[in-house]
């Protein structure tokens, strides 16, 4: 079977959902720009668009395993080709970053022109437009790829688990995360605090609240590599479920 068709199928099958999502984003950006003409309050556009896109692409990742696996196996593709076609689908994260950075930048520019941007963004946009855009693009692309990979891996893991395993994972993982978080914030448990600070150090480069973009990028690349390799191992013996 032609591998190119498998990759094309992945892109084509997701186009409709991307059109709807970015239609909503574009509408919100336009509304935000209009509102900035009438409002003297601080403009809030920007971060929400990035956050919403990462969540959206995570959901796309979740939906990229089961239906595609069934479809491709039925059409004579191997499991390895199915996985490789997902790897070829990862540049969707970069395309998303481009689509999202542009309207956000337009919104910033309008807010800056109308004087409704907060002081912090105001000075940042003025000082280093190109640098800020480039950094946002790189970080956001990598975050998108990581979200896509994570969603795909979780979906693969759930596909392979038996019902009891699904229940245990669904209950215990959130419970442990909540517990550790609560214990560390209450300040009574040093092990919980250590886990949180290690986690923060891994993702942010420091436990003190600052964010280092190089660190965030490196951390999510490692997470993506683990997720993709994990999914690679899981897909080999994946049975065809009805």
């Amino acid at each position, binding site marked *: 079977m032609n591998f190119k068709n498998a990759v094309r199928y992945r892109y084509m099958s997701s186009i409709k959902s991307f059109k709807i999502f970015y239609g909503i984003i574009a509408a919100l950006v336009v509304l935000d720009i209009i509102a900035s003409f009438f409002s003297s309050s601080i403009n809030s556009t920007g971060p929400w668009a990035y956050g919403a896109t990462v969540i959206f692409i995570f959901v796309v990742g979740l939906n990229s395993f089961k239906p595609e696996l069934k479809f491709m196996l039925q059409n004579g593709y191997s499991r*390895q080709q199915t996985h490789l076609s997902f790897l070829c689908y990862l540049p969707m994260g970069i395309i998303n970053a481009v689509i999202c950075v542009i309207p956000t930048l337009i919104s910033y520019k309008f807010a800056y022109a109308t004087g409704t941007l907060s*002081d*912090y963004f105001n*000075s*940042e946009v*003025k*000082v280093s437009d190109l640098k800020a855009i480039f950094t946002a693009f790189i970080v956001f692309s990598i975050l998108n790829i990581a979200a896509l990979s994570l969603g795909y891996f979780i979906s693969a893991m759930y596909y392979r688990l038996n019902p009891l395993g699904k229940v245990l994972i669904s209950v215990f993982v959130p419970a442990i995360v909540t517990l550790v978080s609560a214990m560390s914030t209450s300040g009574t448990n040093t092990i919980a605090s250590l886990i949180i*600070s*290690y986690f923060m*150090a*891994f993702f942010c*480069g*420091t*436990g*003190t609240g*600052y964010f*280092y973009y*190089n*660190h965030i990028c*490196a*951390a999510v690349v*490692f*997470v993506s*590599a*683990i997720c*993709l*390799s*994990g999914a*690679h*191992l899981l897909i*080999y*013996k994946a049975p065809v479920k009805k």
Partner: protein
Amino acid sequence: MKKKNIVIPVFVIILALLGSTFMTVCTTDFMQQYYVSTAPTYVDFHDRTAYESIDYSKFNYEKTRRFADLRYKIEPNIYSLGRVMDNYDPGTLVRQVKNGMTLPDGCYKKGIEYCEKMLEHDYKDFHGENPIYPNNDLFRARYFSQYVFLLYLDGQTEKSKQEAEKFVFADKTEYSAMGLISFSEYFSYVYNDGDPNDKAWVLETEKYIIEYNKAVNPERDYTQVFSNEPQNYIFPDTSKTVSDYLNEMTTGYYN
């Protein structure tokens, strides 16, 4: 499953785990904090009992410096530079000296170098057309204070004095309340050997700095600066001049 099929994903997972462990342990301040955790920088400095319980023999300055340098290579940005600077914090250094530790050669010079870089970078941002961080005076006050103090510890007493004068008299910067407090806090280390609980020196230092600021910009409403904690800004009526203060700051305690 064919053996060759699992080789690549398993290899990638192992590589990613090793890489992420290396990154977390060696290039963040996680490990730095482990080595610096015995230093007062990371202790609540209002708690004297915490100071006294510190086991200085555990503090490995050389290892901390190596991690700090590695981190600076990977994250050469303003905040990272600031974090690296923390490992040359005068408060930390003074306590180590006081506790009889022999610091490695050149560690003060390294601290001075970081301070100079920080101040150069910071000055451009603060005085340039487009200040990036509007509240930068706090950082600036801190690094300038550290710079002066490190020069003194390095034996460059005259330069320390000149820089201190430049800091207090010639640096035409309006400092916020936090900036002013930062000056006095660091200068008070020199007088009181790191005991910021002794309010007297802090208050006197503030007085001199505020007087200087008033001379530079008499039109500014200084009541705004001290509106947060007015009880802390009742200054003793002292006959000392600013030069007296500077002389004491650079030569008084340690001689």
